[in-house]
């Protein structure tokens, strides 16, 4: 599929050189959003502020000043990033009407380099889901087949990139929410090492695994955006030191030791997905990569670990929505306790309630050791197995999700929906970086290839993914 956008670095260079204007790019982006509104990828545009910012950037260029590495480049933020110019709702009724009093740190960093947020993307409310069907507002449609889901929870962001609404979009990835929709919708989805980017100003889901995801058409585009956002932030104590740079030459595949994850190629993987992944592996091998099978025996437990730890953190993080300080507030409640309970009953959707209930259960007195502490200990076991695997291999590879995009409404059982995350949660549990690359099609539906690297090797992963991507085109 051809794109109306040049590579991001070229777009910014053209704006800086006066060959195109920031306003022109913003208007092109806004027009595409309007033309493609039937896909329901976007909750709101930030058009007024975006045009104002574009004029400011064009003014800098006219005055001969440096407008930044992303000068005039439009982007779309998932609706759980606090931005000026539109509401931030995390696609939830309880935050409807919320107007951010400050912006997310990564948004500030992107703006400082001249990027312009043009819209907020739909998502599963609070990030709880794998299809965007849990949005409290509407369901986003898959860009390749409107009867199917785009994946989730960053489904609006993935669809917006594939439909060319902007050169890149931000997502979040707590258990696969950037990589899985990238796989199902057909773009690049990057999840960094935990802590590489600040979580400040992003609606919290599970603080120990929340990361900022980047969705783009190419790895090079994603790497440039990562390069702008990465690094420590005083407003997030879990941020880590960055590497020198995330952009640059692609790494040769020759001699790279890549472990193919045995547990993910087994039972439960849809045949057509398996065959696309196997073909992709053959291409990597033909380019000189040394691919062999690796077993991580505790991997099948990763999803159970996730669905204890993450609801536990969700139940804590969502306790702030109590109707007193911001968000929806039940008008008829006469006392504080009733106000809390009624506000949360009406304001939260069913999946948020379900996860609050699970989290409350696993953290409650008498069950804490059996669930939460046990899960944190199995997490250690998983980390140890990944560390062992990364002694033998530079990278790990496998599918992103067991299936291609499924039909809207096809998965009604919540536990079945949780199983969509089975191949993505491990990277979040161990904190390592992971990328989903478009690997091919099954019929008209995209299939992603997942590559993972050790913690803090984001630069190496992006360099390798750049080469792999060229082979898979």
């Amino acid at each position: 599929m051809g794109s109306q956008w040049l590579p991001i670095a070229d777009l910014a260079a053209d704006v800086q050189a006066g060959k195109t204007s920031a306003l022109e790019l913003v208007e092109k982006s806004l027009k595409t959003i309007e033309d493609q509104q039937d896909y329901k990828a976007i909750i709101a545009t930030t058009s007024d502020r975006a045009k104002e910012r574009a004029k400011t950037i064009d003014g800098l260029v006219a005055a001969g000043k440096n407008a930044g590495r992303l000068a005039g480049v439009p982007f779309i933020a998932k609706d759980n990033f606090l931005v000026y110019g539109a509401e931030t709702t995390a696609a939830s009724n309880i935050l409807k009407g919320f107007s951010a009093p400050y912006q997310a740190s990564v948004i500030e960093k992107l703006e400082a380099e001249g990027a312009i947020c043009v819209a907020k993307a739909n998502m599963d409310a609070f990030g709880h889901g794998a299809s965007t069907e849990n949005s409290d507002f509407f369901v986003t449609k898959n860009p390749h087949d409107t009867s199917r889901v785009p994946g989730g929870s960053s489904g609006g962001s993935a669809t917006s990139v594939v439909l060319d609404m902007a050169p890149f979009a931000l997502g979040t990835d707590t258990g696969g929410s950037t990589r899985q929709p990238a796989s199902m919708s057909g773009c690049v989805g990057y999840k960094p090492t935990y802590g590489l980017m600040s979580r400040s100003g992003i609606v919290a889901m599970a603080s120990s695994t929340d990361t900022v995801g980047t969705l783009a058409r190419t790895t090079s585009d994603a790497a440039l955006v990562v390069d702008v956002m990465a690094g420590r932030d005083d407003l997030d104590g879990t941020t880590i030191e960055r590497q020198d740079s995330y952009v640059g030459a692609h790494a040769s595949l020759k001699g790279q030791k890549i472990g193919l994850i045995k547990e993910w190629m087994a039972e439960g993987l849809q045949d057509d997905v398996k065959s696309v992944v196997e073909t992709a592996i053959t291409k990597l091998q033909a380019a000189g990569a040394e691919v062999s099978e690796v077993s991580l025996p505790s991997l099948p437990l990763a999803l159970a670990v996730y669905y204890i730890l993450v609801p536990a953190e969700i139940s804590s993080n969502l306790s702030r929505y109590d109707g007193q300080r911001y968000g929806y507030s039940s008008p008829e409640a006469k006392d504080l306790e009733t106000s809390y309970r009624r506000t949360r009953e009406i304001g939260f959707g069913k999946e948020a309630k379900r996860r609050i209930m699970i989290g409350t259960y696993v953290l409650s007195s008498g069950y804490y050791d059996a669930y939460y502490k046990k899960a944190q200990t199995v997490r250690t076991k998983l980390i140890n197995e990944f560390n062992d695997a990364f002694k033998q291999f530079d990278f790990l590879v496998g599918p992103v999700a067991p299936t291609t995009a499924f039909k809207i409404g096809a998965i009604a059982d919540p536990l079945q929906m949780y199983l969509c995350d089975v191949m993505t949660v491990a990277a979040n549990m161990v904190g390592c970086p992971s990328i989903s690359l478009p690997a091919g099609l099954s019929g008209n539906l995209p299939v992603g290839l997942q590559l993972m690297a050790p913690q803090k090797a984001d630069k190496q992963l992006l360099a390798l993914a750049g080469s792999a991507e060229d082979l898979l085109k």
Partner: protein
Amino acid sequence: MLIMAKLKRDDILKLAQLARLDLDEDEITEFTSELSAILGYVEQLQNADTTGLKPTNQVTGLLSVTRDDEMRDYGYEPKDLLKNVPTVKDDLIKVKRIIG
């Protein structure tokens, strides 16, 4: 410890109370079966051998991150931070009655 979670209606009501969440009758019925199924799935961890292993609480190994205890001016006015509050009185957040 082996726990086989089979939640009953009363368990759901207790959890909802702990979470300050009112549920309607349909939700109570649905959650009773759904939560039992989800907990049944995650209970497979109880068979995992974790002898000698410690829980992981921070995945990149950071410990007690601190900053200088000094005031910073982020440039926000109280009215900016209060604009989303449902009920404000004299620049204070007004909550519902606490004691009956």
